[in-house]
């Protein structure tokens, strides 16, 4: 049994990070130059880590599958970034941000990591402003804030509806500066297909050059994975088309544990699905819930007429509208956390009150806010989002309520890491959405950007020196070592076998099927029978893929179908693990809602006695079942309570 010890320092929470930093082993500048670090991914976590490690003097190699680091999917984050600055003097503090995050995560995250995140948050804003990130400001010249779901203070910093873009450009510029200085080397258009382990330590990666198809080897003294989340396992999600689990999955197959894969976040405010050929879903920032009111008709007769387009939503008078979030959760109203809002939408639609042509949509209505604040004020806050909505749906949200429905958006699960953000493989780190550590079973809005940047700018640069300080006598790792040879060979064999299958169906065919299975049985609500059925269906799909996939084009050329095939094959295996994890977790918590575990009025029922643990899975070889390890969660500062937003 692997002992999952987070290794957080002793002492009160508020002093742990300071005491860690004081005791942390350092590497002197002359030695840093001799140490190589690989960073996989250039989103907020990867770009900030690579830039900072470069500034410190390490030799960094950074990889992305996109044509340039600035395209990583962090760029699409809209709403904002949380920080416990308390600039608004509304009662915020590090402790309160910590508490909100632990509670919002439904008490399934580690106190020590979350407290550190909250305590670092103010520094992130300072750094971003210094980099030239144009956050929203008040007329007095100081920074503006807004509120976000799951909290009662205004601690979210934002740059219109494009906060992720502006933060990523900040990190990308910092990275570009290091590339120019020569401390970071950029490898773009590369897929990382394997992690190489030498004598028990992560020492390199195998990459496929997406332009030439060449299989390349890169070595380092440590490897940092910042490859993002795995939401595309559902086929339709708000992730970018290329977002994939492959680097993390290859780490899992090489011995790193994968934690809480069933904790996936379904975001409540996305543009509803329009048809079979839809390729991705578009998020409408949660910040819209600050001013938008969510409702469906009270009467089924109105629903019928709406679907037949006999009436417009604006024809339905106030008294025949059901503002179900305000009704069910008067204290938080439309600002309940994401998991709660998503489930409530599903509940109404399942009960037959959904609107739109498919019946799978609810209204998000701005008429009251427009009346109260004026069209201009609403345009200043959400103009670009309204524009985006109109572009996609062809309806004007200033005139008629938006239609929204939940969609897969973020994955809280990921590689298991300790307090140092190191996986169970020495020298292998996971940061940002790629790890599991800070959001428990549900992430609060505007916390992903915070975590990605905290990990990359401020946590990893300290913790990795603890490891690298003992590597100063290790010369550069030779990519000719048998371990590299073997890894490159197995990558080539898998590519050959994909290419040589010569089946009948395209990769998308299988990906769509997988997505449907996952959404149906391991989506917003799960139950034992459904999950068991999913296991069977996934096994069938896996066999079908192996026998029948068809990949046109060659191996040694630009071949997007081949890239997709590798990714989807990993997603199928991950899907199976997610279902196993959902089966073993006999409770409802956060994004994981097991229908067997609910109160009579449909609220989630957590089981703190039996389930207050992190479920971390160990790969036991392709034909065998993975093994579950548990890290017990101890709550010494906060007392877990049933979440109530009523």
């Amino acid at each position, binding site marked *: 049994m692997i002992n999952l010890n987070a290794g957080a320092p002793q002492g009160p929470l508020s002093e742990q990070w300071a005491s860690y930093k004081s005791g942390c082993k350092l590497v002197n500048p002359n030695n840093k130059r001799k140490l190589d670090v690989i960073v996989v991914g250039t989103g907020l976590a990867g770009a900030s880590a690579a830039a900072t490690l470069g500034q410190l003097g390490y030799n960094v190699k950074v990889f992305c599958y996109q044509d340039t680091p600035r395209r990583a999917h962090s760029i699409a984050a809209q709403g904002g970034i949380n920080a416990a600055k308390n600039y608004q003097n509304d009662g915020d503090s590090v402790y309160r941000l910590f508490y909100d995050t632990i509670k919002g995560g439904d008490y399934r995250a580690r106190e020590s990591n979350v407290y550190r995140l909250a305590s670092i948050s103010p520094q992130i804003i300072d750094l971003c402003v*210094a*980099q030239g990130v144009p956050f929203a400001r008040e007329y007095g010249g100081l920074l503006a804030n807004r509120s976000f779901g799951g909290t009662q203070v205004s601690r979210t910093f934002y740059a219109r509806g494009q906060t992720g*873009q502006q933060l990523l450009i900040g990190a990308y510029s910092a990275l570009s*500066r290091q590339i120019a200085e020569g401390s970071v080397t950029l490898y*773009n258009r590369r897929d990382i297909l394997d992690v190489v382990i030498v004598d028990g330590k992560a020492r390199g990666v195998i990459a496929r050059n997406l332009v030439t198809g060449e299989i390349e080897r890169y070595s380092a003294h440590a490897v940092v994975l910042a490859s993002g989340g795995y939401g595309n396992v559902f086929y339709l999600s708000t992730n970018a088309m290329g977002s994939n689990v492959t680097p993390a999955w290859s780490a899992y197959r090489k011995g790193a544990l994968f934690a809480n894969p069933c904790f996936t976040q379904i975001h409540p405010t996305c543009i509803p699905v329009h048809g079979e050929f839809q390729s991705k879903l578009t998020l409408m920032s949660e910040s819209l819930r600050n001013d938008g009111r969510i409702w469906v008709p009270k009467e089924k007769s109105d629903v019928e007429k709406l679907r037949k387009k006999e009436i417009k939503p604006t024809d339905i008078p106030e008294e025949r509208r059901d503002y179900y979030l305000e009704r069910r959760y008067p204290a938080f109203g439309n600002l309940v956390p994401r998991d709660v809002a998503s489930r409530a939408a599903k509940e109404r639609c399942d009960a037959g009150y959904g609107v739109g042509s498919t019946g799978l949509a609810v209204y998000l209505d701005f008429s009251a806010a427009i009346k109260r604040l004026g069209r201009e004020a609403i345009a200043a806050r959400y103009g670009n989002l309204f524009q985006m909505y109109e572009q996609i749906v062809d309806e004007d949200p200033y005139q008629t309520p938006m239609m929204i429905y939940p969609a897969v958006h973020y994955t809280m699960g990921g590689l298991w890491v300790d307090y140092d953000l190191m996986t169970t493989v020495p020298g292998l780190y996971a940061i940002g959405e790629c790890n599991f550590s800070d959001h428990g079973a549900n992430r609060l809005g505007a916390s992903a950007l915070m975590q990605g940047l905290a990990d990359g700018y401020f946590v990893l640069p300290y913790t990795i020196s603890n490891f690298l300080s003992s590597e100063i006598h290790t010369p550069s790792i030779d990519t000719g070592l048998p371990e590299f040879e073997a890894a490159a060979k197995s990558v080539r064999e898998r590519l050959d076998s994909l290419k040589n299958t010569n089946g009948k169906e*395209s990769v998308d065919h299988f990906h769509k099927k997988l997505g449907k299975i996952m959404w149906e049985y391991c989506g917003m609500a799960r139950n034992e029978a459904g999950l068991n059925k999913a296991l069977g269906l996934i096994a069938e799909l896996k066999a079908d893929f192996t026998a029948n996939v068809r990949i046109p084009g060659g191996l040694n050329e630009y071949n997007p179908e081949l890239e997709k095939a590798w990714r989807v094959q990993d997603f199928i295996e991950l899907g199976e693990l997610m279902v196993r994890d959902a089966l073993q977790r006999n409770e409802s918590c956060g994004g994981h809602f097991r229908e067997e575990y609910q109160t009579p009025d449909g609220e989630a029922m957590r089981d703190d006695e039996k389930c207050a643990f992190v479920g971390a899975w160990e790969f036991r070889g392709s034909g065998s079942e993975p093994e579950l390890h548990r890290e017990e969660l101890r709550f010494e500062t906060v007392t877990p309570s049933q979440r109530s937003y009523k």
Partner: protein
Amino acid sequence: MNFTLKIWRQKNGADKGGLVTYEVKGISPDSSFFEMLDMLNQQLIGQGIDPVSFDHDCREGICGTCSLYINGRPHGPLKGVTTCQLHMRSFRDGEAIFIEPWRCGAFPVIKDLIVDRSAFDRIIQSGGYVSVNSGGIPDANAIPVPKHDSDASFDAAACIGCGACVASCPNASAMLFVSSKVSHLALLPQGRIEAERRVQNMVATMDSLGFGNCSNTYACEAECPKEISVANIARMNREFLAAKVFAEKEKKVSFSL
């Protein structure tokens, strides 16, 4: 809806390439342009033909990966929209649609509709940043920034680096791209400190990479999916000139000392 597609096919950078005609049928007007191309590719894979390669990623208009000349216009017929946010309802049923990659010497074709835009990265590397490290930073509110400047800076920083400005310019000039970065940082007190050095270095790099000069056609602004204003080019020219004059003055001062 049905369409006739005339698509640029080019196996790799060395291949000559040419237009190939394809037919697609039964497309929903609510499909995005890329969903239409996805359908074409599914069709081609079924027929054993190499699918059309095109760059795309977020499909929500923000990552800047997508490109394409559609009927001769970067990102197609709509104003202020990237190709990924274009929907088929913007086309007539039965229409012939010409689809080509960006055409510019500094953006060589990699395959079919995909071009190499790493020249943009090199321009940013030559100065598109504020030289601060991840430590020793003053409080974010220590330096107030007038809202007007901050908003103008944001407008410039909204550039997604797609390259439509270069693609639309008869001279293949990158002035709109470079000037948006110069403006973004020059408008903020944090970026002001290095403003002179930045503008000179970035312009020098731009020139060295084979981009043309600006002749004020304003095609870039018209085609920019983020509607970045050409006023940024004017600001960059002013910054550039001031930096040059300032640099001359500095030289003289150091001589007289």
